[in-house]
């Protein structure tokens, strides 16, 4: 293009790697590169620390509080935050700090279940659609059109309202049903971007079967953007779960969940704003941690999106 680019190449002055080792080196350096740029990314460091804390909170809430979130003497209800009750107490008199800490588990569970399932479904369908094309592609894409036509929050709202009992699994299932197309399309686009490359044609010409080509050549080269988005998406799902629960169609009492806390706090917005503030901060922090982690991953893994 311009002399400038050439100047860069010349300046880099790297000798071409020995042909034998080229493949292994290339893969290793792709991930090493990613890791190196991740470590230098402040967003990654901040979100990684946050995530470690939040995941520990979800798995072992006892580490963070000695209080039982279900011990709720009405005698101490509606207290402001104090040394004894850091986040105050709620309407029933439960220790709000303990409630908020214990709330992490459900949010994380929904986030991880939905995100993992959707990732697997999306990658598989996207790969199949892009690789085989033709009517397979057409059918799958019309199917994504169909799901896209119903805004996911709306769909989830209608579908969840129908069920009288809603567990973590029910909420997750509905979210999976309404969100998988995003991943399928993302993956399809990502695969299409690599599938016409000469190295794929070369692999075909050398007689590699479709499975080998998919596994060895297409997957490693097209997964980057999708992996990054999976983390971003986990954040979105956690936000969605809180929202649905807040709207009264998500998790139900006696489950402990940030969404439920927000729902309850809404009615006391003016009198007891702390009831709203604390779960809100935690939802925001969790979503933020996942989202910026995902952004950082995407930047690191997708060479095209590298910051200029």
């Amino acid at each position, binding site marked *: 293009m*311009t*002399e*400038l680019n*050439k*100047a*860069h190449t*010349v*300046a*880099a*002055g790297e000798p071409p790697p020995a042909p034998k080792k080229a493949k292994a080196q290339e893969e290793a350096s792709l991930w090493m590169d990613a890791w190196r740029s991740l470590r230098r990314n402040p967003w990654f460091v901040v979100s990684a620390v946050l995530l470690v804390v939040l995941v520990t909170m979800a798995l072992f809430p006892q580490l963070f509080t000695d209080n039982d979130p279900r011990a709720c003497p009405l005698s101490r209800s509606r207290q402001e935050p104090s040394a004894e009750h850091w986040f105050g107490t709620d309407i029933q008199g439960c220790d709000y700090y303990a409630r908020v800490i214990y709330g992490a588990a459900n949010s994380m569970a929904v986030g991880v279940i939905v995100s993992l399932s959707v990732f697997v479904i999306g990658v598989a369908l996207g790969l199949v659609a892009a690789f085989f094309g033709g009517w397979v592609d057409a059918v799958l894409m019309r199917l994504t059109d169909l799901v896209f036509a119903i805004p996911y929050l709306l769909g989830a709202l209608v579908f969840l309202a129908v069920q009288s009992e809603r567990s973590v699994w029910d909420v997750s299932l509905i979210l999976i049903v309404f969100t998988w197309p995003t991943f399928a399309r993302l993956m399809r686009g990502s695969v299409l971007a690599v599938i016409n490359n000469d190295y794929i044609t070369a692999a075909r010409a050398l007689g590699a079967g479709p499975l080998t080509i998919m596994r060895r050549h297409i997957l490693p080269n097209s997964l980057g953007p999708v992996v990054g988005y999976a983390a971003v998406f986990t954040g979105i799902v956690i936000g969605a779960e809180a929202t649905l629960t807040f709207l009264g169609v998500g998790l139900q009492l006696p489950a402990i969940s940030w969404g439920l806390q927000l729902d309850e706090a809404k009615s006391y917005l003016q009198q007891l704003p702390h009831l709203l503030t604390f779960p809100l901060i935690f939802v925001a922090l969790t979503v933020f941690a996942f989202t910026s982690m995902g952004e950082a991953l995407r930047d690191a893994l997708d060479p095209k999106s590298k910051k200029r």
Partner: protein
Amino acid sequence: MTTPRTPEPSFTGDTASPLLEVVDLHVEFHTKAGVAQAINGLNVTLNAGETLAILGESGSGKSVTAQTIMGILDMPPGHIAGGEIRYRGEDLLTMKPEKRRKLRGVSISMIFQDALSALNPVLPVGWQIAEMFRVHQGMNRKLARQKSIAMMQRVGIPAAEERVGDFPHQFSGGMRQRIMIAMAIALDPDVLIADEPTTALDVTVQAQVMRLLKELQVENNMGLILITHDLGVVADVADKIAVMYAGQVMEVSDVYEIYAQPAHPYTEGLLNSVPRIDGQDERLNAISGLPPSLTDMPSGCPFHPRCPYATDLCSAERPGLLPVVAEHTSACHYREEIYNGTRQPREEAQA
């Protein structure tokens, strides 16, 4: 060849100074790997009505030269470390930015290599030509449109009237380059810089576009800087050739002279590497080795690691660009011997 070989700068020049003069220009790029010295003390002079070809391989700094003269070098990472670019005696590098902007496209204009990417894909070509008239001359939309149709006709685009509203991708490569040219010469510039104007084109179209450029140059008495790596293009149209290597000018000479009697080993190597139709040589003689890394320039003459005639003097001291005969300069310690063909290559280089 219709142009006079030795141009008379006096009849357009209002001062004694040449039209464009680059003096000891240094341009660097700051990269992760260090400072890349893209231009290393460059000196060239262009007179009105003259075609100067800057010849060099990729990485020799010829496009950076063009961009620096135009003032469209990306800074950072580019950085002008020293030197002057004088247009009619006035240094462009120290000029006020607004004054310099008003020279761009008006007095000094440029044609790019790849017209498809150099033209804006979402604007009609007529609009892009008309923009010159509208912005620089404050012409109204209608008049500017008529002028751009006239320009399109002048560069030989058939049915210009109907095609004025078409978009770049609707034209063929040669026609797109003609549009580029129409845009560049719209305001009758004194200096036209053509950066590899025909590299992206088919061979037959190349000749047409070069002929057009030459015609326009004669008509307007423009100074034309032709940047190229193609010795064939140069022979046809250039009056004067400057051979660049590693950001420096190695040799400057009249076009006939340089083909007949190069005074620099690099030029000699370039000429030997061109396949000849008469098939006198069975093998192509490529210059051995690679151009130096710009971040790690060799000491002395930048060509010495590849030069078959190199001596200890060459790695110790950088030769100046000095005349061999009148109007023929070379940056080689042994310029006279090369010029006369009396110098013998070293032993190991012959093997």
